[in-house]
């Protein structure tokens, strides 16, 4: 019997852990961030021969360098969070809605259209109400079309929602061409339909609104009957039917909610932040939001943190590129950010599993055998 090849025990094997206490989980996560910083520092020293602390300071300054910058960070976090909240109920139901980008743009288009056509003829408060209603409707319609097809014909929602994104983008391009007589395709600042400003801080209202949504979504998913239905459908459609849940109804209702929240994000982008309309208003955040939602394991409160982390590093990478233009391209900043992300996500594995190494004494014994 051949025995030489497999006589050695494997170097390590992986086994499942029990649930760790929360503080141990956080210890692992903090250790992961620390390890990522150490590795990045080595890279910085070796590749660009700079003091890593300088670069980290630049990342920090990109986010919190001034009062305006700080509030911009919060505002961007809020927008990303809002979209993440919107996709969450659908994802929890295992409805792979990757059309948030298009749903947000539909909301943008609807709000901007309201301002463009009736902005000057109605009082501002009424305009805001009309904008809200239209944005919610537009977002909801954009989401409910694939949902209806999914519920009735079982079409693939991933492809469907993806294609709806393109339609929304080109619809905006079409209307911009129609509205802007010069043919330049840039609309300029809209004069009407601005959201009220709290104090002199233009970002605060957006942040507050989104924080309210986060709390409301948390309660909705965890304590409401609808939230319960969403969870059951997500776990197993068969079980849901067995329990007497009308699965089609739940899919359609949830996607209306999801789309409506995207529409509201579009409304905030037009009415509270940019006051204009371009095809790049959503800026890919419809996709980034999916990552934010997953990272938070679909918990709306954790999402506040994950959205912040994502925004923090994006801004940091941009700041690096502008602070050290001679030393590196934007790519190097992305590498650093990528490493940190990899460690943050990767450490979740060590929370779920333990790695057991081969025992030392055994190693010596097998060494003797091979001699």
């Amino acid at each position, binding site marked *: 019997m051949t025995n030489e090849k497999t006589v050695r025990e494997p170097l390590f094997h992986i086994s499942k852990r029990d649930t760790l206490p929360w503080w141990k989980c956080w210890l692992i996560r903090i250790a992961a961030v620390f390890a990522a910083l150490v590795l990045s520092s080595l890279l910085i020293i070796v590749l660009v021969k700079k003091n890593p602390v300088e670069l980290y300071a630049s990342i920090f300054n990109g986010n919190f360098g001034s009062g305006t910058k700080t509030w911009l960070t919060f505002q961007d976090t809020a927008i990303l969070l809002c979209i993440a909240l919107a996709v969450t109920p659908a994802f929890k139901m295992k409805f792979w809605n990757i059309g948030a980008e298009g749903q947000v743009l539909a909301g943008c288009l609807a709000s901007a259209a309201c301002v463009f056509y009736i902005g000057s003829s109605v009082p501002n408060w009424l305009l805001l109400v009309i904008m809200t209603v239209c944005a919610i409707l537009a977002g909801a319609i954009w989401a409910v079309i694939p949902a209806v097809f999914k519920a009735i014909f079982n079409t693939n929602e991933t492809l469907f929602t993806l294609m709806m994104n393109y339609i929304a983008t080109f619809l905006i391009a079409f209307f911009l061409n129609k509205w802007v007589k010069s043919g330049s395709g840039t609309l300029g600042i809209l004069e009407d339909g601005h959201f009220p400003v709290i104090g002199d801080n233009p970002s605060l209202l957006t942040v507050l609104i989104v924080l309210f949504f986060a709390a409301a979504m948390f309660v909705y998913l965890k304590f409401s009957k609808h939230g319960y239905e969403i969870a059951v459908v997500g776990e197993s459609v068969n*079980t849901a039917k067995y329990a007497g849940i009308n699965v089609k109804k739940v899919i359609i209702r949830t996607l209306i909610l999801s789309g409506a929240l995207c529409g509201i994000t579009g409304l905030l982008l037009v009415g509270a932040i940019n006051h204009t309309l371009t095809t790049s208003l959503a800026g890919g955040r419809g996709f980034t939001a999916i990552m934010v939602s997953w990272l938070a394991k679909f918990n709306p409160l954790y999402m506040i943190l994950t959205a912040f982390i994502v925004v923090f590093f994006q801004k940091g990478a941009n700041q690096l590129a502008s602070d050290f233009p001679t030393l590196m391209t934007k790519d190097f900043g992305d590498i650093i950010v990528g490493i940190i992300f990899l460690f943050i996500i990767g450490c979740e594995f060590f929370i779920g599993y333990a790695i057991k190494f081969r025992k030392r004494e055994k190693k010596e014994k097998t060494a003797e055998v091979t001699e």
Partner: protein
Amino acid sequence: MEKQTALELKGISKYFGSVVANKNVNLSVFKNEILSLLGENGSGKTTLMNMISGIYFPDEGQIFIDGEEVIIRSPKDAFKYKIGMIHQHFKLVDVFSAAENVVLGIDDGEKYNIKQVNSRVREIAEKYGFEIDPQKKIHEMSVSEKQTVEIIKVLYRGADILILDEPTAVLTPQEIKKLFGVLRKMREDGKSIIIITHKLNEVMEISDRVAILRKGEYIGTVNTAETNEKQLTEMMVGKKVELKIERVKTDFDRPLLELRDLIIKKDDGSTAIDGVNFYIRGGEILGVAGVAGCGQKELCEAIAGLRKLESGFIMHKGESIVGLPPKEIIKKGIAMSFIPEDRLGMGLVPSFSITDNMMLKTYGEGKSPFVNRKSARERANGLIERLEIVTPSTETPVRRLSGGNVQKVLVGREIESSPNVIVTAYPVRGLDINSSYAIYDILNEQKKNGVGILFIGEDLDVMLALCDKIMVLCHGKNMGIVHAEKTTKEQLGLMMTGALDLNEQKKDKVFGKAKDSNLTEEQWSAAEERAEAEKEFKEKSDD
């Protein structure tokens, strides 16, 4: 004759987190021997065997083959040491033929020659007394034929140590007899066979020695000739148990659920249930016997309103429930629990806590937009206490509970809703003796309360002891309904395979139509006429 040790385990342990699957297990198997591995569910039998066949790696301990220590890191290593495992769930490619499945994955550097393979497969089959057509496709095969392919697959690779994980669970009595014949021939040929099973009578019949595990620990090995079922049970459970299922005598009520001329189709469009009649009275347990996949699942789903009927009637207390949404059927007091092979499937949400699973069917009650977790938690606590469910808390996900406790949660919840009809399929699937008896007791208690029970089971011994009447299905047809007291296992086995059809024997008798039906014959024929008319109308409007 001096016995030669083929396989020896010394101090084997395996942990999953803080769960001990195996602890310090010592076990040896001789050549020319059939060893039964006996233990309750969750006692670590399958984990132990998986370590021998290279699927898991032991945390502690040594494995010896023919006296030499070996390290088995993968199924490939196991194959090198001539160890072959036949798993409970077959791992075959449906669209391939038997021979193609047998050689799949063999990489010996030789040119693939299907003719040679076919003849070798035939050779092996002849040698041990299998019946197999090497060119037959897997999807055309019965369960027992598929099992044969799995065994040949292992023999083809030259295995000397064969491990069979609950091989008899899916077979009819006649097929079991055949399998045992084959195993005996293998033993004569010098092979070592380890067989995992729950059924004590099979252990007594087939094995030379019995090794017993309890809660992951090795209890001991006894010679089959020197023991009896009672001793084995005591070793397995750790205390004395009464091995008798009670058949409670009750006064039968009028039929609660009457089903006539049922035709139900499977997902793939083939016929699952073909013109079946039966009824369930209050205070009666009607058993349904049949080989796996002969329409049991579809029947359950149809009663619960989850599957459309092609035609036929389901009358609950004289009122038709055909076409009602599942919610309405639940409200009428018809509870269905189906335990699928993976034991979680339909009925429970694995990642939900016990509390959340308790409200699966009742979460919608009340006008509040929020779920009432408090009352669900109280009910969960009540259930845990009454059925002695072992769990850290009501908030533990059911996926973390052991099989027996999961099933107690499911059956318990169904009874909690105080139904008048219980449809239960495989409620003791894979359960240990104690838990199984707990479930039988629950069902008997419900029977005493006048509930009508449809019991779809696997183990004929249990059905003979527990049920009042047994209906036998074969390819979706009703082979007849017999009184459990007046029939035998052999008769049921013949009916299951279709060799015996009581409809042909007793042509004057119609099975499954109650004399004291809730509907008069006129009403039945009126319902039939109505259905006919509806069908015609539908066909016309389709044109």
